[in-house]
C-alpha cells in the first residue's frame, strides 16, 4: 500500500511516468553474504540486460557499506542484518564492488555474461 502511494508521489514529482514496470517475481534474486569482512561468494555471475535483486546478508556483528563506483550503488548494512539492492540491467562486463568500511578484505565483483549463467 505505502509502496504504491510512494510510487504515486514519485510519479507526481517527476511527471515522467517513471516507476517500476517489472513485476517483483520476474527479478532474479542473488544472495551475497558478508562474513569476517569478506564477501561470499566474491564473484557473482549474472545474466546481461536483466535486473537483479541482490540480497546482502551481513553475518558480522559490525556494520558494512556495500559500495561500487561502477554500479553507482552505496548502502549501509548494519551488523547481523540483511538488505536488498537492485542492480542492472547491465551490459556484459566486470563490475567490482567492495565494502567501504573494510575495503582491504571485503572485495568482490559482479561478472555480467551475455549467456545465461551455467547453473
Amino acid at each position: 500500500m505505502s509502496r504504491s502511494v510512494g510510487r504515486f508521489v514519485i510519479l507526481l514529482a517527476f511527471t515522467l511516468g517513471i516507476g517500476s514496470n517489472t513485476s517483483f517475481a520476474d527479478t532474479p534474486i542473488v544472495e551475497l553474504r558478508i562474513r569476517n569482512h569478506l564477501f561470499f561468494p566474491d564473484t557473482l555471475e549474472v545474466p546481461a540486460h536483466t535486473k537483479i535483486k541482490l540480497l546482502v546478508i551481513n553475518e558480522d556483528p559490525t556494520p558494512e557499506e556495500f559500495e561500487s563506483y561502477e554500479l553507482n550503488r552505496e548502502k549501509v548494512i548494519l551488523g547481523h542484518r540483511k538488505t536488498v539492492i537492485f542492480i542492472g540491467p547491465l551490459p556484459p562486463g566486470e563490475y567490482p564492488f567492495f565494502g567501504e568500511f573494510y575495503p582491504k578484505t571485503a572485495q568482490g565483483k559482479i561478472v555480467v555474461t551475455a549467456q545465461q549463467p551455467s547453473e
Partner: protein
Amino acid sequence: MFLIAAILAVLTLFNFVAALQGYSSSLKEANKLFDQHLRQTAELIARLYAGHPIKPLDDESTLAYQVWQGQKLLASFGIEQTRPITDFYPGFGYANFDGYRWRTLVYYDQNHRNWIITAERTDLRYRLAESVISHAILPILLSIPLAGLLIWLIISHGLKPLRMLSQQLKNKQADDLSPVVLPELKSELQQVNQSINALMSRLEVALNREKHFTADAAHELRTPISALKIQLHNLEEDISPDNEAFQQLRAGVDRIQHLVEQLLSLYRSTPEQLAHNFCRINLHQLAQDVIAELHTKFETKQQIAELAGQACMIEGDPFALTTLLQNLLNNASKYTPPGGHILVTVSTEGHLVYLKVEDSGPGIAPEDYDKIFKRFQRLNNKPDGSTTPGCGLGMTIVRNIADLHRARIEIERSRFESGTAFIIIFTRTED
C-alpha cells in the same frame, strides 16, 4: 582571526594531502616488499622440496603454502583447505579461503614439475604495513594544533602594535588631535604612526587658525560697528527720522551687529571655549528669566509667550544655557507671525528633562530638519518676507550647546495648528 584561520586551513590541507601521498606510496612500496618476500619463499620451497613433505618453516610465520603435483597435494602449511586455493596460473592474485582474504603467488617449478602456491593473509599484511606507516603519520596530525597555537602566538604578537594603534585611534574623542603614542614600534608601523601624527598636527593647526580667524575678525569688527552706530545716532538728529534710506541704513547696521554677536557666541559655544564651570541650574527659572528679558521683542510683534511646567534641576553652564534659550526664543519669535503663540515647557520624565519650545509659525518640512543645523542656513519660509535680522547661525549655536551638555535635540510639529516644536532632552541630576 582571518589570517590565523586561513593559514591553518592551508597548512592542514597541504600537510594532510602530502601525508596521504606519502602514506599511499609507502604502502605501495611495502606491498612490493611483501610480494617479493612471497616470491622468495616460493623459490625457496621449490629448491628445498626434494620429493617428500617438508616440515613447517616456523610457527610464527604469516605465510602459508601448498605444493601440488598435477592434482595431488604434496605438501601444505597453514591452509586447512585441501583443494587448490587458486587456479594454476602463474603470478600474483587474491583469493578468499579459510575465512580470510589472501594475497597469493602461483609459481611453477620446472625441475620437479611442481606448482607451488604461497599465500599471505591480507589483513595481517596491511595491519603490519599500516601500524608502521601510521606511526609516521600520527605526529603530522598532532603537530597541526601545536602549529596552530604557535602561529596564533606569532601573528598576535606581530600585529600587537597595529591593534594598539587602532585601539588608540578608536578611543580618541572627535576633537582630540593630540599625537598617538605607541611604545617600541616596528619600522613599518613607525612610518604609519609618524604620518598619522603629522596629519593630526596639521589638522589641528588648520582648525585652530579657522576658529581664531572667525573670532578675531568678529571681535575686530565690533569697534567700527559701535562707531557706525554712534554716527547713525548723530545723523538721526540732522535728517528727518522717516527718511527711507536712513531707515534702511540703520536696519543694515543692526543686522551686521547681530551677525557679529552671533559669530562671537558661536565661537564661545565650542567645547574648547567653554570652561567647564558646570553647576546645578533650575531650568524653569532660567527660562523664565530669558522670557522676561525678551519681553519687549514679543510685545512689538504682539506675540503671547508662555511658560509651563515645574522646576527642574540640571547640571549645566548658565551662560551657555541662556544663549541656547535666547536663540530658540528669538528664532520662534522671528518665524511666528504677529499675534502668534510661543510656549515653553519644562518637564521631567524619569531621569530625563525636557525643554520644549513651540511656536505657531509656518513649521518646517520634515526633510528640512537636518538642514537647519548647518551654518548660515536659512529656510525661505518667513511669513511676511520681512527683513528680520538673522544670519542662520542660531541653530548651530543651539546644537553646540546641547552637545556640550550631552543633550539630544528633537524636532516635531508643535501643538498649535501649525509650527515647530524644538525639544532639548537633558539628563536630570538627582535632587
